[in-house]
């Protein structure tokens, strides 16, 4: 296992370390744009930067999957002592670690910003940690969807198939909404009932744990699909 960790570190250390830089995105956006848009709310700018950092970090997390969709590598790692399950476990742990590092960096930079802002007596400088925390879990969910597609179909084909699936899903949701347009008030009322003040914290916390469970489930699914995917690589 140490060998696999070493391989991942050697291959992807810059991607891993770039997570720290992505955490600076809210601050960078604020510093770059506060001159351009003088009247803009600083918190809004930081949230914009946070989303930009989130997208950049997501793209970088996907880049660590590149290069493993080769038949020869697939056969070799399957025959190794750790097997393909060990290899996939290290990949999943590494990507999870990257998300945690990104979140940690974001929150640390945010704390630093709030400290400096407090010294400058900026009373409107609120923390964006809670949004960062929720985005972090969204990232875990997105990676749980991305990784099985990549290993089952290869990097390029996998992204394409995932895109098609997402489009189909979006069309289905739209179709359901259009078909129920007359009942929209009832649906809204139902949703409001479920997400009321008493339930919201429970639903949120359960949702977060479900994201973690889905990430683990994604690992198990990828383990099942990996060998089928290997047969199609280099095709």
């Amino acid at each position, binding site marked *: *296992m*140490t060998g696999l*960790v070493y391989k991942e570190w050697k291959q992807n250390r810059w991607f891993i370390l770039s997570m720290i830089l992505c955490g600076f995105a809210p601050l960078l956006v604020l510093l770059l744009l506060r001159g351009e848009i003088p009247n803009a709310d600083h918190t809004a700018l930081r949230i914009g930067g946070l989303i930009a950092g989130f997208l950049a970090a997501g793209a970088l997390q996907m880049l660590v999957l590149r290069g493993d969709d080769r038949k020869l590598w697939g056969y070799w790692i399957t025959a190794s002592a750790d097997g393909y399950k060990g290899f996939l*476990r290290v990949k999943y*742990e590494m990507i999870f670690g990257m*998300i*945690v*590092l990104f*979140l*940690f960096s974001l*929150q*640390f930079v945010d*704390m*630093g910003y*709030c*400290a*400096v802002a*407090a*010294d400058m007596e900026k009373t409107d400088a609120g923390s964006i940690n809670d949004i960062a*925390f929720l985005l*972090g*879990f969204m990232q*875990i969910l997105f990676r749980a969807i991305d990784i099985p597609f990549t290993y089952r179909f290869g990097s390029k084909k996998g992204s394409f198939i995932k895109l098609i699936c997402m489009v189909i899903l979006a069309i289905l949701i739209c179709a359901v909404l259009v078909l129920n347009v007359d009942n929209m008030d009832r649906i809204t009322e139902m949703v409001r009932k479920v997400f009321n003040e*008493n*339930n919201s*914290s*429970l639903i*949120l*916390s*359960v949702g*977060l*744990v479900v*994201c*973690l469970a889905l990430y683990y489930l994604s690992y198990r699914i990828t383990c099942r699909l990996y060998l089928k995917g290997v047969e199609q690589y280099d095709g």
Partner: protein
Amino acid sequence: MTAKKENAQRLGIYLLIVSLFVLLFFVYRKLMNESNTVFFIIYYLLFSFSPAIASLITRAVTKEGFRDMKLHLKLEKNIKWYLLAFGLPLIFFSARILLPIIVSGHSEWFDRFTFQNVLASVFMLAALSTVQSIGLLGEELGWRGYMNQKMEPLFGTVGTCLLGGILWSLWHLPMDLAGWLDGEGSLSDSLMMCGGRMLLLTSFGTFLMWLTKKTDSVFPAVVAHFMFNQSQGALGGFLSQGNIPENVDLGMIASVFEYVPMVILAGIFTGLLLREKKNAPKTA
């Protein structure tokens, strides 16, 4: 140089570096009180990571290398110990905070403890512990990942639990003395706080040491340490929203429950550490 001397030298360098960081806290205390930025730099950037920084510097200076830092997750083999790391501090703090209230007959204070609220809180702690506990690597990499390893050959298992716990709590001294130094409390209050923390951390450190040795990874200790910090907040949060009269004092019962469960826990895990040491295969 014998292995024992080498260990003592490394431990000495490590403790010297950590104490320099503690000193930094005292030297810049006034500035820290005046400026949030200085507080952030000294406390969050330097002090809270000082055990990890000290262990890395010591490894580099003594040319010991960076192997055996116990940074593997080892999740698959140790999932039950990770769950224990999550659950035990939560159970302990529930016993510590809630039992005295129940025993003293004030169950009406629990009006915020509905099943739904408690469940939400446990799930939230579970989610938080997976993504936000990483900051505590700054401590655990030093205390459990380095100091304990160097101490055990020198002072034995029980000695490491005791001395390691005392040193760990002394590292918190700047926080304990802050009130007195700022003129907001008496020295005896600060020393009482320091003594209480020493008892708690020495006891809890035994569990963290056992976890690290059992799993050969510092991450379960990181999770347990995170839960140690957060469980108090979660339970305190519920209680503060409840219907509790101001300046309430539960007297002796609260003091007993404050420490007794943790001392029992320490006894159990010291026993386990000694048993496992006895059963471990002897190496030449």
